[in-house]
């Protein structure tokens, strides 16, 4: 698919888009913390990926794509700093915040599980939003996307030592923050805190 995309086959590239769009959007949302901006960053990342596809030199395509979306997120965050901040939650037609947005729904789970998942997601996102973006992107890459240190270093283009120290500081801040949201966590995770 990558080779076909390099030859200008847009349909082949769109197959890649469909395969990776959840991962890319997830990264964008966790780093930016706002759905509309995350959508913009995701679209921008795929456009950028299509135009820079010739720079892909093999290796992990996921890492290459995460690097592009992370940069798109930084651009989006810088853009947002110059503009008024919008609400964290998506809003309905009447301007009311939607507690369980459509993109959080999973047709296979029970309503209470959906609510629980939404609350956990919201708690984590609120704590992530309190972090500086340079710490946030690394903790999202390592702890949420499951990348190893070396890949994270390559994605954010920083030395390994920087990744280690920033990750440790991010985890420390998140640990303190998440203690305040223990009642929003699922029971199994909540018990861990109380031990």
């Amino acid at each position, binding site marked *: 698919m990558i080779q076909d995309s390099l030859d200008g086959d*847009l349909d082949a590239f769109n197959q890649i*888009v469909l395969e990776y769009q959840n991962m890319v959007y997830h990264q964008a949302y966790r780093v930016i913390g706002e759905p509309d901006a995350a959508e913009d960053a995701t679209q921008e990342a795929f456009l950028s990926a*299509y135009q820079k596809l010739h720079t892909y030199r093999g290796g992990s395509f996921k890492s290459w794509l995460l690097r592009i979306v992370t940069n798109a997120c930084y651009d989006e965050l810088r853009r947002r700093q110059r503009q008024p901040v919008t609400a964290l939650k998506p809003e309905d037609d009447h301007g009311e915040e939607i507690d369980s947005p459509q993109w*959080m729904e999973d047709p296979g789970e029970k309503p209470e599980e959906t609510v629980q998942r939404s609350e956990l997601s919201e708690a984590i996102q609120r704590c992530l939003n309190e972090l500086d973006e340079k710490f946030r992107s690394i903790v999202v890459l390592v*702890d949420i996307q*499951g990348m190893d240190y070396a890949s994270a270093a390559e994605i954010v283009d920083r030395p390994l030592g920087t990744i280690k120290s920033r990750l440790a500081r991010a985890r420390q801040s998140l640990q303190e923050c998440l203690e305040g949201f223990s009642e929003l966590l699922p029971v199994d995770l909540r018990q861990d805190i109380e031990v």
Partner: protein
Amino acid sequence: MNISRRDWQLLSEYIDGELPERKRERLEGRLESERALQDALRKIKHTRRILRATPHLSAPRDFILTPDMIPQRETRTFFPVFKLATALVSILLVAVLVLDFGGSFLPMRGAEYAAPAVQEEALEKAGEVDQTGEKELEPSELPQMEERAEGVEMEKEVEVGEAEEAESLALGEMTETPPATTTVSPTPTVKPPPPTPPPAQVEEGGGLPLIRIVEIILAGLVVLGVIGMVWSRKRRGDAS
């Protein structure tokens, strides 16, 4: 009890298996005896567990690209190209203008220098006439000689005039002698006309010199570059 930032980083690397063996063994030794470190380890493990449990979000829509999205991005590459090319051509144009009006490189000058050279040659020739033909040239005759540099036709007239004068002078000195060819040979006085300057040299001064053509071409390229910059910027503005 709080632990230091350094210890927290050691624990962070430890739970990810990124700690070198020596440091890991030392940390494990401390963990057996330090309760604060044990608590911190439990907390950091728990934090990582929560983060790993973060629900994965689905994309709210498809982000597939359509053909009309692609050219909008590609147009962006034209503006810097035009900008760079225009800047380079402008520098080149300025350099050529400096060379032209600075006076160090002028093909026209060849033609300008050609006339004095012909004049010099004519003067030399006049000297030869003085020696060989025993003819003293009046100062008033020098301008006539110099005029030869102006054109071949004029030179021919001067040559004929010189020949006649030299002949009459010789006749005046050699009385009773028929105008024989023995005393005064017309050969020294009536020399073949000097070689005409190469037509190309003279033509160059009259026609459009190469440097002017280069200047015109470069100026045209600068204008085209500016038009291209305006066009590409307008296209980019329309696209965005």
